[in-house]
């Protein structure tokens, strides 16, 4: 062996040893974090997701640090111009969230959400991640929140202690000024409710089972049961947020309906799903009272209609898994989607042509949708995009590359300009945002 060869061999050994030590260092750092995933030891190496020291409070009286800084990606970094640059995947709040709504204000994307613990409503701008509180604490232990009236009203749903009866309170947020259309309005600024200004609102009927806000967010279709089991009747009503009026529109001897779409004149009603029970989707015409079947006899079916209601993304349960399909009402055609997920984990783009879906990876064997509804199985998702015409799918991002937290995504919501994808992590009800402009392919 020549001297030159000896140097090369020694040099290679040194490089390999250094690489090994570096890998060990990263693995040991990651392993010390409790409750985190261990499959990606280099997760912290990525430029996204590591918290900075961004302070999110504002000077106004009702402002609180709703947007938290955590190790998983809320914090900002500063670019060359001294501006805050936020990670593409952000934990908007780690506080349990009951519901969310996204809107544009002065051309910028905001998300409004309801805290489960307090019923407080916050808004967070995606540009600066500042959180403004829009209401005071009046209702605790909120399970669900539905925003309507362009985000100026919110229905907070909860049960009283030792009771199963659901109470629904419509909170009026109009005292908090905001501009909710997508048009630019430089003069409009957000203000916050003061601690003394108790938000106004009204109670809807007790025992409302399920509800769906209309596409334009002006109305609400809800269902409740009346009568004993043998004579049970399901009553469907519409609540107009602006007129503050309720009208009964639907009566049915069957009561296990789940409203999945409402546009003011049509409500799509799905039968509640279980793995081996055939499911149905009906279209209810509010004006004529006509109830027509759209899809039927599909085991364990759950559905997600497109914004124009012409296409229906639906799941079918099979042995331990799920198959996903899109039914086109106009063409009476069905296409397969080669992803295993539930429609509740998806959101349609406004063009009715594509869908973003949170897809469990891996997909555990189970009784679907029951096991997921019952909290027996939790997922860890990646985001995929589906072409609703061809059924072709493309991977958008895997959160594992950006955060150590496992994300079981629900309540997927696109901002009006479709630059952000919001979702609630079912594992702890935290609220997240993903920057679709800068983050696709991450």
């Amino acid at each position, binding site marked *: 062996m020549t001297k030159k060869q000896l140097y090369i061999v020694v040099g290679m050994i040194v490089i390999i040893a250094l690489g090994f030590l570096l890998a060990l260092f990263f693995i040991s750092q990651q392993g010390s974090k409790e409750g985190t995933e261990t499959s990606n030891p280099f997760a912290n190496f990525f430029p996204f997701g590591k918290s900075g020291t961004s302070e999110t409070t504002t000077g106004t009286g009702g402002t609180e640090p709703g947007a938290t800084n955590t190790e998983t990606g809320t914090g900002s970094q500063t670019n060359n111009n001294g501006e805050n640059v936020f990670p593409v995947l952000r934990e908007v709040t780690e506080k349990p969230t009951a519901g969310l709504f996204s809107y544009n204000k002065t051309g910028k994307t905001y998300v409004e959400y309801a805290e489960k*613990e307090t019923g407080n409503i916050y808004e967070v701008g995606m540009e600066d991640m500042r959180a403004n509180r829009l209401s005071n604490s009046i209702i605790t*232990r909120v*399970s669900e929140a539905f925003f309507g009236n362009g985000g100026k009203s919110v229905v907070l749903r909860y049960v009283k202690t030792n009771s199963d009866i659901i109470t629904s309170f419509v909170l009026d947020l109009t005292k908090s000024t905001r501009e909710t259309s997508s048009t630019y309005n430089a003069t409009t600024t957000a203000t916050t409710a003061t601690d003394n200004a108790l938000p106004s609102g009204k109670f809807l009927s007790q025992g409302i089972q399920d509800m769906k806000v209309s596409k334009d967010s002006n109305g609400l279709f809800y269902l409740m049961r009346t009568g004993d089991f043998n004579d049970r009747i399901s009553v469907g009503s519409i609540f107009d947020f602006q007129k503050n009026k309720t009208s009964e529109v639907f009566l049915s001897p*069957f009561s*296990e309906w*789940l409203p999945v779409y409402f546009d003011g004149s049509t409500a799509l009603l799905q039968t509640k799903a279980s793995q081996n029970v055939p499911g149905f989707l009906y279209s209810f015409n509010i004006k004529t009272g006509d109830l*027509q*079947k759209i899809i039927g006899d599909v085991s364990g079916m759950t559905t997600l209609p497109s914004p124009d209601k012409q296409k229906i993304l639906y799941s079918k349960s099979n042995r331990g898994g799920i198959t996903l399909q899109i039914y086109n009402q106009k063409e009476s055609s069905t296409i397969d989607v080669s992803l295993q997920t539930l429609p509740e984990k998806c959101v349609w783009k406004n063009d009715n042509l594509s869908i973003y879906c949170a897809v469990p990876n891996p997909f555990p064997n189970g009784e679907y949708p029951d096991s997921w509804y019952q909290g027996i199985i939790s997922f860890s998702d990646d985001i995929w995009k589906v072409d609703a015409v061809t059924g072709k799918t493309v991977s958008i991002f895997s959160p594992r590359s950006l955060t150590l937290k496992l994300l079981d995504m629900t309540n997927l919501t696109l901002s009006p300009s479709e630059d952000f994808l919001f979702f609630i992590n079912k594992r702890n009800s935290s609220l997240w945002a993903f920057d679709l402009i800068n983050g696709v392919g991450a």
Partner: protein
Amino acid sequence: MKKIHFSFILIAALSFLCLPAVMFGQGSLSNPLGTQGASTFVTISLSPTNPGPNTDVTATVSSFQTNVDTTNIAWYLNGQKKLTGIGKKNFTFKTGNIGELVTIEVALDTEAYGTITKELTILPNTLEILWESDTYVPPFYKGKALPSSQSSVRVIALPRFVNQNKLINTNNIVYTWKKGYFKDQNSSGFGKNVFVYKTGYTFNNDEITISATTEDKSVSITKKVPIHVYEPKIVLFENKPIEGIRYENALMDTFNYIENEVTVHAVPFFFSLSGLNDNSASFVWKLDGKNLETNPENKSEFTLKKPEKGSGQYQLRLDINNLGYDLQTGSKKLTLVYDNQSQ
């Protein structure tokens, strides 16, 4: 000669046997027989067999007289030629709105018999069967409440019948309900579109048959629905003091609790209970084998304080027995682990 004769009889017999499947297997089909003698050996079958309104249907022609794969076939929809060609034995079309008559006709050019035609009319009426049970699921649950042994089930018939272009009111239809082979006389009759019954034993299927017929008997559809009887089950959740019950995540076999106390909330899925504090159910909580006293007004929950020092674990067990429902029982175990040292 005898052989030929036998074959002919066999073919004729088979054809005859097949015809009722087309004639009577589909409640909304009418006069599937052609008027020509030869056409009696041509059959049109439909998939789905009983198409509803606005449904894609595939019609398939078959014949014992001629090889349809080598025959020139023409298909007509409401009198208009839609498809023609050799071996075109399948034809897909869409039914119209409810009560809208669709006529399909098929013409086969045969060497031996000339042109054989066959016509079929379809009147899309529908009968859907939905059902629900009286069993418990928690508030905000998006899934179906499943029937368990001895629970009550309501079966609801949703007919959409059209006669002379008018939608018939569901109250003006005669319903006949059967559980198994037995007709339920009290539940059957004019306008009786809901049938309530008690389920049988766990894991069995209850088979319910419903026939819905118009007063003039012009429209009649019969359907069967199997209703499976499930086992009730207990699922445990954490009830957080401020946030509330975490229905999103069940407590599975082991739960590490770090707060000073933990409240475990039990959900008796698919027990026949009107509410959690329904007095017909007994909830027996045990900690390391010893019975625990719980609040009778909140018997579905148990709160456990964490010892101030040390580490260890408790074995929690819950037994639920629904009184009056012998087979509605369940039990659930949970290991609660605490560790003061690691905090």
